[in-house]
């Protein structure tokens, strides 16, 4: 299997399985990570993302399958024999050492001389803009400063890959965004691989080159943030991202470049180019993103349905209107406040919703 590995990938997981007792934490996971890539592994808790990361770090050993790091099969190789530093969710800084001693720790373990150790540690502290805190106790630092110490400690040994396990989850929103840009620019400057585990879509999508979405130990989709956002592979991914409306129906007839779909809430048209390997009578699931939904006071529209308002939520400059179809399906419409201002959006009022057949995306995995 190793020879298939492209020279550009630094990590390769080949049908990796991890069981704890009888429970599959990770079930047959395959993917590769390119050199210098920023890969995010995303999913809700218990999906296997942290276990996958820990197997890369050597903190867990796979039950089955192979893991390759830089071309070498590393199953059974202890974490202290690998070059896979990790940043913990708890940061795991040593409270009994000063900031500088924390950063020096990895160098000391490698037998780097004291002079060089101090020089390299201080260079990294400076790079992370925390040199002034070098002699502080860890408990004297703020959340963001601790974050920078943890990064300096992991990166001071100049690894080819950095593993991050939800490192920003304890920070407030403002600091989180700032640290995201620190991480992004750091990764670009160093040109090394970052593997970043998170449950947060905004973190994953704003930083990563590619995102792996996991659920119940399996990979649901791998792709760039744009690919995943625009073309989720299946219902799980679409629901996980949470920004699209999902419809299921049966293909009934093809007219020109459009298929007509019979769904519980009416018949809709979708661009036939988006339907592959399906025939008349087959079931299809398609999504329309919340911002592609158009809304009017009343009146029937082609590709439209009548809905009842359930509630409204303000999200910055836009609002999300939560509505319900006659069959009880829940839909979302996201527009600017202006576009909603001419409508009666009180709960219970009726509205007409429609969308462009070209704005539908058919889920290939359903």
């Amino acid at each position, binding site marked *: 299997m190793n020879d298939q590995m492209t020279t550009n990938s630094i990590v390769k997981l080949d049908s990796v399985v991890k069981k704890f007792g009888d429970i599959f934490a990770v079930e047959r996971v395959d993917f590769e990570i390119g050199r210098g890539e920023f890969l995010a592994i995303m999913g809700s808790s218990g999906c296997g993302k942290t276990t996958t990361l820990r197997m890369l770090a050597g903190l867990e050993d796979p039950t089955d399958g192979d893991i390759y790091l830089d071309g070498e099969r590393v199953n059974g190789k202890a974490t202290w024999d690998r070059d896979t530093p990790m940043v*913990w969710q708890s940061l795991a800084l040593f409270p009994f050492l000063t900031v500088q001693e924390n950063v020096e*720790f*990895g160098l000391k373990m490698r037998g780097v001389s004291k002079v060089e150790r101090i020089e390299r540690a201080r260079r990294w502290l400076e790079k992370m803009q925390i040199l002034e805190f070098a002699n502080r106790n860890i408990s004297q630092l703020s959340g963001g400063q601790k974050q920078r110490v943890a990064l300096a400690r992991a990166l001071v040994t100049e690894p080819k890959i950095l593993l991050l396990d939800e490192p920003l989850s304890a920070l407030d929103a403002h600091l989180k965004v700032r640290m995201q840009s620190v991480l992004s620019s750091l990764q670009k400057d160093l040109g090394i691989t970052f593997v970043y585990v998170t449950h947060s879509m905004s973190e994953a999508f704003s930083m990563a080159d590619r995102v792996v979405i996991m659920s119940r130990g399996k990979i649901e989709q791998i792709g760039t943030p744009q690919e995943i956002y625009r073309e989720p592979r299946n219902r799980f991914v679409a629901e996980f991202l949470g920004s699209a409306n999902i419809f299921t129906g049966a293909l009934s007839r093809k007219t020109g470049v459009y298929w007509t779909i019979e769904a519980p809430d009416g018949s809709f048209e979708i661009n036939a180019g988006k339907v592959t390997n399906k025939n008349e009578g087959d079931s299809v699931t398609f999504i329309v993103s919340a911002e592609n939904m158009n809304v009017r006071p009343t009146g029937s529209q082609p590709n439209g349905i009548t809905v009842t308002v359930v509630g409204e939520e303000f999200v910055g400059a836009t609002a999300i209107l939560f509505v319900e179809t006659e069959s009880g399906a829940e839909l979302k419409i996201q527009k600017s406040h202006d576009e909603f201002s001419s409508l009666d959006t009180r709960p219970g009022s009726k509205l007409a919703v429609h969308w462009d057949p070209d704005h539908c995306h058919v889920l290939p995995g359903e």
Partner: protein
Amino acid sequence: MSKRPSLFSLVLSLPLLIWQLAFFLFPLLFLVAISFWTVRNFQMQPDFNTGNWVRIFTRSAFWDAYLRTFCLAAASAAITSAIAFPASYAISFKLSERARRWLIFVLIIPFFTSYLVRVYSLQVFLSDAGIINALLGKFGIGPFPLLNSTFGTLVGMITLCLPLVILLQLFSLNFVNRDLVEAAHNLRCARFRTVFLVIVPSAKVGLVIAALFAFILSFGDFVSPLYLGGGNPPTLSIMITDITKSGQQWPRAAVVALTMIGTLLTVAFLSIRFAYRERGE
């Protein structure tokens, strides 16, 4: 949210307060007082006589006993901690939750038997004709003077302290953040080194307090130095009983007792300050 203690909390702490006043603070003050009294015709008389302090502090026998007791207690604390640590580490880091609970129960069992009874049974083991020397004799070695020696005293003291020290160490090791251990491994610190570079510093407070308890118990111990150590040359506890028996010199015994209390307070204060000392600014 006033900082003043409420009536409720005052009532709750009342039993302890009364107990400590009646059985600790009052006897302590009384001890200080009688250390200045005078003994005439085997009768104690209230007085302000500093002669007792001068008398004790100028006797080299006292300082010999003081040094001996201090060294015995320090050795007991060090050896007990060293014997206990591998066991505590293994129980805390290598065993399942269930096995750990069972072992903690097993460790409490020695407390079920009176210390004095255990020391008497140790005499059987350690005497010249005892079990250990009999076994060694089969290989043509010995007999060794295990009883009525420093060795005997230390065996008794360590037996006394070991269960408590393991329990205290265990509880502090259980609170060591496991992420720190993994982080050390991840930074290329292998298992053995991690114990000394990460686990011991993380559990420092508990380990120091465990050793401190061993020191306190051993420093004041009377049973092991007498029944296993032979009582001669004496430790401070034995010296106290000797002084009171010969000529009813309670005031001089009080001086020895107060010196012991002062020593323990100093050692406790210094150890706790060491335990909580933090690195960096």
